């Protein structure tokens, strides 16, 4: 599929370079092609050597894959970032207020602004969280909000990832790689630094320690070395200078969480957990989980440990609840949303379902609980047979699906086999919410769909990444 008309990040409709790209573009035109090719090969070799890898770790210990890294950066001008950041803060603030509300008084449901069943019947709603008070009333401490651009200054939120969003390590490593490959570029452009992220994250985590703890011990909880995001878990623990633990390293005694150390048990106050709710505590959630810690939820209920993100945030980033985020912003903050939501048809509603079934070739259909670019239909890119097969799935279980118009995602020049060509991109900025403040690192992770015309940027679907520059004013 080719989207005829899309916003090109680097050039305008007349083909001239946008002002915020002028410095880079001039530099790029001076660079010989062979030198660029050489630098790309160097980047690949370095990522391999550092073991900055992703995905399945096979039995032979050799199946780690690289996420393709593109050396043309995605550049965001200062004023545009300012507006985007304000919109992200607003959105995450409202989402945290919403999660607190649905596990306490449920005012938004009582006010009829969101139908009760969307929340209470939602598989991601955790009744275990009802009435539990969490530090600072913050639930989604780390949010990875997926944003796409349609036109000038026109950003849409695709998804609010509030459970265990990943990718921030690639944001940091991509920047390191760019600085290593092209140091002079950084002296020629005023690019906002990103390397404070681990410090900001640690401060955020420490700020939500249980009350009464003055010098909180923070750990990162990973499912283990075979997890696809293990590199990131280890990386963040190392950068923050905290222990990287597995479930087997922790135990709960008298409602207090401890880790097993060479000098005996040591107290743990804040757990940055990178495992899903379902696996946290075999006594409460999945009994077969070997990744979690028996008794963890008891300690959590007793207010003796903070989990980041909190349990039960999934109720707010579900695609069926997504529709109501603008309403949350109005309800909790009394403000108008700064960022757009993509118009969304809910197949559970009769009228919407009718529309969706009539317009499948032009829509994107997603599973409500799907992630990673799986279980979706991109209408304009699909064959008749694929569309009909998907139609049958929707009719069989309409509640499971939502649909959205196919957005003309912006595109950024990218190195591909044929040379430099535009490829569609998105952006995942990371929003940190602590008990005192909401913080963002300028930029985020830019993902790029490397296949021509493709709108799916997920790494599991052949996506790559780029360094993201926010220019300082």
């Amino acid at each position, binding site marked *: 599929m080719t989207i005829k008309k899309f916003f090109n990040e680097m050039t305008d409709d007349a083909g001239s370079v946008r002002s915020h790209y002028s410095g880079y573009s001039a530099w790029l035109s001076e660079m010989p092609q062979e030198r660029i090719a050489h630098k790309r090969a160097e980047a690949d070799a370095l990522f391999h050597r*550092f073991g900055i890898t992703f995905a399945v770790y096979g039995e032979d210990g050799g199946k780690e894959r690289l996420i393709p890294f593109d050396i043309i950066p995605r550049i965001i001008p200062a004023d545009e970032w300012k507006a985007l950041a304000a919109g992200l803060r607003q959105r995450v603030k409202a989402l945290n207020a919403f999660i607190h509300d649905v596990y306490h008084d449920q005012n938004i449901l009582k006010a009829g602004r969101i139908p009760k069943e969307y929340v209470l019947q939602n598989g991601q709603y955790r009744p275990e969280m009802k009435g539990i008070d969490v530090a600072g009333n913050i639930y989604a401490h780390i949010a990875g909000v997926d944003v796409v651009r349609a036109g000038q200054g026109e950003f849409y939120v695709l998804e609010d990832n509030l459970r265990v969003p990943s990718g921030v390590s690639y944001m940091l490593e991509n920047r390191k790689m760019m600085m290593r490959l092209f140091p002079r570029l950084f002296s020629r452009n005023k690019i906002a630094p990103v390397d404070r992220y681990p410090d900001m994250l640690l401060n955020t985590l420490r700020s939500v320690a249980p009350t009464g703890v003055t010098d909180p011990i923070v750990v990162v909880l990973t499912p*283990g070395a075979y997890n696809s995001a293990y590199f990131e878990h280890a990386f963040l623990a190392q950068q923050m200078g905290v*222990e*990287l633990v597995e479930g*087997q390293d922790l135990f709960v005694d008298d409602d207090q969480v401890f880790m097993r150390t*060479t000098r005996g048990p040591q107290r743990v106050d804040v757990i940055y957990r990178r495992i899903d709710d379902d696996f946290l505590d075999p006594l409460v959630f999945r009994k077969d989980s070997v990744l979690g810690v028996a008794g963890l939820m008891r300690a959590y209920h007793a207010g003796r440990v903070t989990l980041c993100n909190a349990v039960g945030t999934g109720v707010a980033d579900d695609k069926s609840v997504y529709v109501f985020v603008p309403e949350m912003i109005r309800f909790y903050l009394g403000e108008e949303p700064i960022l757009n939501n993509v118009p969304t048809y809910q197949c559970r509603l009769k009228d919407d379902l009718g529309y969706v079934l009539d317009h499948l070739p032009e829509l994107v259909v997603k599973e409500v609980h799907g992630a990673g670019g799986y279980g979706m239909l991109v209408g304009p890119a699909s064959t008749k047979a694929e569309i009909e097969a998907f139609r049958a799935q929707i009719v069989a279980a309409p509640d499971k699906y939502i649909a959205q118009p196919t957005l003309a995602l912006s595109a950024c020049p990218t190195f591909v086999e044929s040379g430099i060509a535009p490829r569609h991109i998105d952006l995942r900025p990371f929003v940190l919410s602590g008990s005192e403040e909401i913080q963002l690192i300028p930029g985020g992770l830019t993902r790029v769909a490397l296949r021509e015309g493709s709108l799916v940027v997920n790494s599991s679907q052949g996506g790559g990444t780029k360094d993201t520059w926010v220019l300082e004013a």
Partner: protein
Amino acid sequence: MLSRTADHLYWMARYMERAENIARLLDVNYRLSLMPQPADQMEKAWAATLRIMGLDELYWEKYDEITPENVFDLLIFDRENLSSVWHCLRAARENAHAVRGTITSEMWETTNGTWLKMRDFSPAALSDIEISEFFEWVKYRSHLSRGVTIGTMLQDEAWRFTRIGTFLERADNTSRILDVKYQLLLPAGESEGGAADYYQWSALLRSVSAFEVYRKVYRDLITPARVAELLLLRSDMPRSLARCMQEVYNNLQKVANNRSAETERRAGEMDASLRFGRVDDIMRGGLHNYLVKVLARVQDISNRIANDFLVPVSA
């Protein structure tokens, strides 16, 4: 630090050291096999090597006759053999991978790089190059790992556990190398000082990088008792048993916890007996008998370290 982290560091170091020592052991045997001698003599040497590594049963399950190629297959490439170089380098890398947040990036890159390269070697590829080049490669990768560890790692508890792993493994391996050679060389019949004897003892010394050291220390003929003294009791010799146990004891003291007193005592006792021991006494009781006891004590200390530090401390 986490007990599991300590465990990974300890085994990372042990496996790297083990890979090096397998390479050393095979190298010396291979060099000896190139000397003119009766065929059965060489077979005995390979058989003794397999026995001392506890691999003779596995070997005879897989092969009908003893050839250097078969032995290399089993000890270098075999994936079922937990003591093959392939497996050791993989295990070192797996352990490093599990604690890559604790070790320095240079350590990780070195260990990972070694493993990636090991995967490129195959029996076929090795027939093209001199096998000794491969042994050299393993030794140098191990040197590099150790150097990177010493040169980049904060000398904290994590470092202590890698050191303990290195030296316990080396204590075990030096004892084994000495035992297998000694058993073979002495009954060989030739009188002390003969040409073949000289080559064999010098090959043994070379296998633990001790040939020049021997020359420097003794400035005299190579004799079994002096070799034993050098490899067992000289604490200034970095691969000697005395040096290994001194390092184990010193590092153990630095990580002591409230349950490790007895382990420390046993390591200290062994350290002292090596420091004050006399080679005459050892030889009088029989070197082999002595080494059997040494291996048992090293094993005992390993087990105790696992229980005191590495196996989770129960709540």
